[in-house]
């Protein structure tokens, strides 16, 4: 079967990619604003206030500033790796959104093993951090990158296992099917049927997206800015965008797998999906403005000594229960 440019499926993909790029950009802006506003109010200050009413246009101003800034490469940096890294960090974010079902019909691409696609593409991000850290010719970046690699590789395993438990239950990797298999009411959601998997997944998701308290690759009080120390302008901007986009993805996946997706007790639809995703995002933001940062060896200990055994036990129990009943 030959796909030509005029193939309707091709059109759909291109249109979906553009829509998704817009969606990612818009949501990243909203998230940046939310983060700063929440941080402000948690700290009893107004947060951004001057650009636009209640600082609404502040993220836009930030984006403009980042775009306008000079791109700067330190002497001795590997030009190829250095410039590829932000791109490699950002590009895989778009395919991540393809199989996410916002609505029974609102899916960019119906992919049967959708979950697999997401897991495959999230793995690329760590490569970008590694490239950025190595290519910057900066010791802080290098330390940040080495932390990022160890952390991402470690946390991907329990994350996978937690998801696997859910897919065992439903016998599917298709997100839409998993959503439909859950009911409309909270007690029918997987978060309540598989609470351990949900907690493990959510913890790993925070770690995978390098968010506080697991933000070690950029730990600014230790490594100045970690892997993106040397990036300015849009080089930094793309990393920033990718971080927020990744946050949206992990929360969207959590919504689909654990919180019943678009289904709600009433008026089911994409707004439910968005509301649940944003609720999770806000929890992640709330974490950041509450907790201190864990230490690196403790971070790995949490993973290998707690999350991994927990998720394995959970997986085995799930498998046993599925087999028996």
């Amino acid at each position, binding site marked *: 079967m030959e796909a030509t440019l005029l193939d309707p499926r091709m059109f759909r993909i291109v249109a979906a990619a553009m829509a998704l790029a817009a969606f990612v950009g818009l949501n990243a802006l909203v998230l940046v604003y939310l983060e700063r506003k929440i941080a402000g109010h948690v700290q009893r200050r107004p947060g951004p206030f001057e650009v636009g009413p209640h600082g609404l246009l502040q993220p836009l101003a930030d984006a403009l500033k980042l775009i306008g800034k000079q791109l700067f490469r330190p002497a001795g940096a590997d030009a190829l790796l250095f410039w590829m890294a932000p791109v490699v960090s950002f590009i895989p974010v778009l395919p991540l959104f393809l199989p996410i079902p916002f609505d029974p019909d609102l899916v960019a691409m119906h992919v049967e093993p959708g979950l697999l696609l997401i897991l495959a593409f999230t793995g690329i991000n760590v490569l970008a951090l590694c490239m950025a850290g190595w290519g910057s010719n900066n*010791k802080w970046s290098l330390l940040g990158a080495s932390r990022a690699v160890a952390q991402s590789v470690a946390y991907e395993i329990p994350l996978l296992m937690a998801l696997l438990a859910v897919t065992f239950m439903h016998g599917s990797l298709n997100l839409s099917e998993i959503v439909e298999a859950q009911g409309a009411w909270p007690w029918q959601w997987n978060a309540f049927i598989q609470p351990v998997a949900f907690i493990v997944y959510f913890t790993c998701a925070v770690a995978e997206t390098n968010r506080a308290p697991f933000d070690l690759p950029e730990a600014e009080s230790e490594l100045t800015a970690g892997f993106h120390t040397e990036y300015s302008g849009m080089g930094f901007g793309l990393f920033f965008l990718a971080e927020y986009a990744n946050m949206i993805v992990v929360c969207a996946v959590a919504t689909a797998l654990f919180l019943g997706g678009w289904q709600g007790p009433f008026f089911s639809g994409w707004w439910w999906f968005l509301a649940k995703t944003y609720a999770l995002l806000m929890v992640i933001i709330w974490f950041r403005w509450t907790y*201190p940062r864990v230490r690196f060896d403790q971070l790995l200990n949490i993973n290998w000594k707690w999350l991994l055994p927990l998720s394995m036990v959970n997986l085995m129990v799930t498998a046993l229960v599925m087999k028996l009943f």
Partner: protein
Amino acid sequence: MDSVFHQEPFRGDYYTRRFEPGPDDSTLILNMGPQHPSTHGVLRVVVELEGEYILRAEPVLGYLHRMHEKMGETRSYLQYMPNMGRVDYLHPLAWNHAYVCAVEKLGNIEVPRRAEFIRVITSELNRISSHLLWWGAYLLDLGAFTPIMYAFEERERIQDLLQEPTGSRLTYSFFRPGGVAADLSPEFLQGVREFIPYMRSRLPMYKDLVTDNIILRYRCEEVGELPLDMARRYGASGPVLRASGMAYDVRRAEPYSVYPELEFATPVSQRTDAMGRYKVRLAEIEESLKILEQAVEMIPEGEILVKGAPKPRWKAPAGEVYQAVEGARGKIGVHILSAGSAQPYRIKLRAPGFSNLSLFAELAKGTLLSDAVSILGSLDLVIPEIDR
């Protein structure tokens, strides 16, 4: 590899050359600072890392050196007052206190009782504000962004209070040889009375948000353990020493001002680690509140500046005097040698942070980089004071 960075002015300075890796250079030489987020100002620490473990660490000082001791030799006794506000900008009133006490000893000047109480009240308020800022900044080092904002809420109230008599919010130059520059108003005393229960009501929140937090506990407990003997060899003082189990407080050991009349405990911790230092400082806030509580009730009416207090062209009698004072960071010492002229012949400032930082090199050996940041924070360093 003969790029421009390997030729002369880029070859590194005295310190980096000392840290030149050996033949098997599997270690990483890292310059933390002078512009590093967790070195509080402009401290520079050169570290040699094996992975993330520190093999060697050496603080490099002098980036904020202003030669206060030389300035002292060129200024009259009164003119040196603003310098005292700028040595340690977090607890300037303790330096004010040490200096004026030294000058008073030198010139045999009586201080009115009301002035002594004013000094104690303002100085203790200042100590609380210094500990609050340390608390916030330490948590910032450990990656928690919010506590510093809560600490500043209280700190702002203290500064609003202190602003009224002292006229400044940071670099106070308020004490004068023979008294203080301004009287406390009844509104100020009322403000302090109201502040004490408010501050006490905030402390449980600190405990819930931070002290009990399991992440923080794992970042502080058993990190940077400072045995008492090591503390002695380096001359550590203040909360750093008291967290190693020695109840040594200059206010008790070498009583000055009206501290002997006030009841307060010297908080001690036997933990010896960063958590011990943390807990001692929080306990000191409570003790300072106790002092304030008593002092605002005991303060008598009267003069605030003794008659015949040193005038601008005052000449001190010849002689030597050493005055120690308990600052928020430890033992502050002012050593004045006078030859009988209007300027001191020599003035030596003993900064507690200087001694407290000097033990960092030994303390950081073998720890993780993150632990080093935690240790550095737990020592409560104010770089201008260390560099002077």
